[in-house]
């Protein structure tokens, strides 16, 4: 059996949205290399509960890398050091015995802290509800493949649709910009025949909501794509810019 590790975590504690926060240090003495990062926090939380302290609040849900809930910045990297990996899929074997790990929430004006590592990402929901959908008539479910879509377009749309809306792009961006997220949504639907009806209105409304929510602007550093657990390509941002110009000029 693999040796257990001693890990020191410096974790952000904040009791509420307006409370001041600070880093709190804990030693986790029995960390197995095959534990996931969240399991390591579970172990720490059990210890905190047993000793009458408040456990660390963090978002998590599916724990299989597809829900996008497990938001935390680990040693300055959203979702930690491994490429294309969500925090729940990150294992402690990525760290060494004796490591000190700093864990912080996503930091952006548009993602206010709720408690500890939990942030309010409803600004993403508001961007989606302002245009990240297609309107379809009610009635019987249409047959699958009733509308043929070319393989290249389908593949590209699917790559953009892989976005899980976790917000790592915002957390990684020096400007806390949401351009990669919005770009992925806009590019996904712009590639599909079903997305054509609302194509122009969609991009203009989503950008307006993005700006109103207080996200920054893109300065083309590329940190978003490098931190994205689903490896959304920077093409999403170029496509978003193109769609925005197209809609601004032609209104559709």
């Amino acid at each position, binding site marked *: 059996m693999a040796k257990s590790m001693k890990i020191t975590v410096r974790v952000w504690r904040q009791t509420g949205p307006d409370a001041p926060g600070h880093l709190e240090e804990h030693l986790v003495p029995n960390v197995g290399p095959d534990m996931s990062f969240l399991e390591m926090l579970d172990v720490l939380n059990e210890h905190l509960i047993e000793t009458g302290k408040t456990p660390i609040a963090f978002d998590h849900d599916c724990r299989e890398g597809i829900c996008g809930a497990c938001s935390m910045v680990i040693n*300055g*990297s959203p979702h930690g050091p491994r490429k294309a990996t969500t925090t729940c899929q990150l294992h402690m074997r990525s760290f060494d015995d004796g490591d000190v790990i700093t864990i912080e929430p996503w930091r952006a*004006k548009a993602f206010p802290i709720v408690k500890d590592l939990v942030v309010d990402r409803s600004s993403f929901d508001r961007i989606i509800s302002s245009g990240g959908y297609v309107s379809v008539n009610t009635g019987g479910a249409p047959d699958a493949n009733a509308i043929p879509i070319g393989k290249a377009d389908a593949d590209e749309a699917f790559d953009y649709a892989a976005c899980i809306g976790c917000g790592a792009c915002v957390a990684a961006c020096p400007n*806390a910009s949401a351009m990669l997220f919005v770009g992925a949504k806009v590019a996904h639907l712009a590639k599909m025949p079903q997305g054509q009806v609302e194509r122009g209105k969609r991009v203009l409304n989503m950008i307006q909501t993005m700006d109103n929510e207080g996200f920054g602007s893109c300065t*083309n550093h590329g*940190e978003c794509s490098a931190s994205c657990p689903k490896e959304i390509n920077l093409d999403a*941002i170029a496509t978003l810019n193109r769609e925005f110009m197209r809609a601004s000029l032609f209104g559709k």
Partner: protein
Amino acid sequence: MSQANNSRLLAVMNSTIGLKLVMATTGFVLVGFVVAHMLGNLQIYLGPTVFNDYAQMMQSTKLVWVLRLIMLGAIAGHIAAASRLTMRNAESRENEYEASLKSQTSSAAGKLMMHTGIILLIFIVVHLGHFTVGLIQPENFHFQEMLQGNVWVRVPEGFDTSTLAASELRHDAYTMFVRGFQGPAMALFYIVCNCAVMFHLYHAVASMFATLGLSNRDSRGLFKLVGIKIAVLVLLGNISFPIAVQLGFVHL
């Protein structure tokens, strides 16, 4: 234009992407100018007659004022959009990370765009004061050439030009150029400022193509390379002038 169109245009220009498009289009004009300006000035190596012919040609055409207005507009638009975007981006993350974000893709040049931009603004003001309006080193600004037969020769010191017709006199830009770079401090100032130009262009050109929606995963690397090549060529061309004067390759 209808009111609806007006308000749409206003909304577009006030959005982050609209401001980015202002950055990119004005930047395109400015990059074009910087490259042309460097190439035009290479004529210094062909001697006083060719260089002063070029200066006279530029001065004589009404087009120069059109170009100047375009340049002033581009600079004003570039600065206005940059200021608004920078202020927005400064507000988009109110609390910084405790463990600073790990850079994966961003360059120092990209992160220092505002700093190099401010150096460029100072440089442009000094440069115009030096070579365009003659407020800096005014003693170098009054040199003239006169027509003898069909050859232009430098007006000797103390020569009375009041008997000559206006068409027989022209500004001696070559002498101004050489004398302007003879002071080591001024030569150094131009070299340092052109390093800032290089840094600015290093990030600017690739960023411009991305903002205009022109780059994708296949062309992004190429645009980056083109940007770096333009940055380095502009630097080499421009710093060659003060260096050539300092070393005596270009002399009176």
